[in-house]
């Protein structure tokens, strides 16, 4: 797409999402236009019920839009089937969740390895990549620990390592500090800042304004529409 620039990672045009619960139809997104360029750090903010979670599901290809067009990394993903979407998530998106969502019975190492297994990466390369990633997030000495043996901050760092495993186009984080104390949350924010400086594209959904202020750009969603899209210095 020439008009969106060659470096656009996320291009959403007129994206709508309607939840049909049978009795009532809920229009969660009422026409979203959003473009995120490579290397941007975007915070999506908004009150609960504003549609920002729906937006995140669509950005992360966990769900498909009811209308509009969505290109992720230059690939039209609005009409893909479930398995194709799974592949897109694997290659292009790294997820970081508020509740960490690590698999509890397997080690930190195996958690980070999981997307590489899905991606068909060979065993030898998997081992090397997981080791590098865990060292990068400062957990080189905790590889064989199970999630229950780690602190909240450490768990979130494992999750971040996992999100980075396949070298995704975008790291998508949903309230990544929401479940952490101030100090651990600060560490995670610091880690995000570092990733951004290394050139990663980050989209963070949050209502934590301290985190939002670290972003390069803040997008505010309300009632299924973007009501504000500004550089973070302009956020009050």
């Amino acid at each position, binding site marked *: 797409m020439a008009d969106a620039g060659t470096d656009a990672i996320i291009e959403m045009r007129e994206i709508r999402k309607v939840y049909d619960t049978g009795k009532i139809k809920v229009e969660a997104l009422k026409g979203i236009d959003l473009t995120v360029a490579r290397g941007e750090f975007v915070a999506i903010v908004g009150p609960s019920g504003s549609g920002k979670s729906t937006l995140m599901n669509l950005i992360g290809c966990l769900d498909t839009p009811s209308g509009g067009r969505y290109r992720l990394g230059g690939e039209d993903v609005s009409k893909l089937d*479930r398995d194709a979407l799974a*592949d897109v*998530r*694997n290659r292009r998106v790294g997820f970081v*969740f508020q509740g960490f969502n690590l698999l509890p019975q397997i080690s930190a190492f195996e958690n980070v390895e999981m997307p590489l297994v899905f991606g068909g990466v060979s065993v030898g390369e998997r081992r090397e990549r997981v080791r590098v990633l865990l060292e990068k997030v400062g957990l080189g000495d905790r590889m064989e620990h199970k999630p229950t043996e780690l602190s909240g901050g450490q768990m979130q760092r494992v999750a971040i390592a996992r999100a980075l495993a396949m070298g995704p186009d975008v790291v998508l984080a949903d309230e990544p500090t929401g479940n952490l104390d101030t100090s651990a949350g600060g560490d995670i924010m610091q880690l995000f800042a570092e990733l951004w400086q290394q050139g990663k594209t980050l989209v963070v959904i949050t209502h934590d304004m301290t985190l939002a202020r670290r972003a390069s750009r803040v997008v505010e969603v309300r009632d299924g529409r973007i009501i504000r899209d500004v550089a973070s210095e302009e956020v009050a």
Partner: protein
Amino acid sequence: MSAGRRDIGVVLHLFMGSARLQKKRAFLTIASIAWGTVTILLLLAFGEGLKRQFARNERAMGENLAICWPGESSKIWKGLPEGRPIQPRIDDIPTLQARMPDVKVWGEMTSSRALLQYARKAVNGRLIGTNYVYGDPRKHYPKPGGRFFGPQDEEQKRRVAFMGSEIAEDVFGKEEPVGRTVLINGSPFTVIGVMQKKTQTSTYGGPDKNHVVIPISTFRALFGRDRLNVVVLHTETEDEMDGAIERMKQYFAGRYSFDPKDERVFGIWNTVKGQRISGKIFLGMEMFFGIIGALTLIIGCVGVANIMYAVVKERTREIGVKMALGARRGWITGPFILEGLSYTLVGGLAGAVIAIVIVTVLGALPQDKMKVLEFMGQPTLSWPIGAATVAILGTAGLLAGYFPARRAAAIDPAATLRYE
């Protein structure tokens, strides 16, 4: 192709991971399948053993026999009145046999209270005079060291006797009868064979173990009688029997002048009919056992499916996470189906081994010391039983894995990932 291999690789990786974590549950599930398998196999094995034993006992008298008791004519025929006795003679047998060489034909004459003497013992017993062809079809198999009488014995009217197993014991006690001389109504006879023990449930006249059989020619010389008590036909197959009976009637109708359509001349016990009926009864019984066994096994599989459903529910978030990380649907369902299949496979194998051990142990029990086994028979495992069990197990295992897996695949990742 490489995509397929990748699918298999991923599914195996995930399966190994979950199997390693669920040892106790896996054990319990496998045990329930093993239990079901043991049940179905033992039920079928007992059924099969019972069937074989029953057939063996029922057919201990012989298979494909028509025992024909001559009686009186009941129709007027060619100017002759009804009510004439029809009495075949010993000499009719060779003629009849020559006419129907594909059928074994013999006549029998009976003396129900012959006096048997050996040393100081005297025993009253049933004496049968018959043709030498009687031996094999009537399953008068000799114990080692003895024989049934043959054509020369019959031709030369030899004084030889073949004894039932029980009457031989009554007369000779612990002594070996073969080669010894027994007096039958005062005439000396050489014992040439003693019948092997057999459990017999159908007889005409009495159990074979209680009679003594001698050549029909010798019998005639001894008693001076010429009229046969019964004429017996034995065919190779069940289907030949009706035709054989018809030809026999034709012969005697010509010989003794009666209407060949006269049903009352011969009272005929055609064992083929009984064989067919009991064959059906046992088929029904086997089906019944099979269904009970299969239901037991299915209960085990429902248990597997139930547990797997619970696992799917318990791992909903985990499945959602895997989906978010890029797991295709097949990679989610694959491990569940594999889990269901491997539980049933291992459980089925364990059950089969246990059942085989039980059957082998029962088979090693001394049969003659346990009167029950004489009629119940040895439980027997056969290939059809094995194949049927494998088929049921396989299908049930697939279903036990498939339905929970389908539920797992239907999980919406977006809904499971949010923090609650």
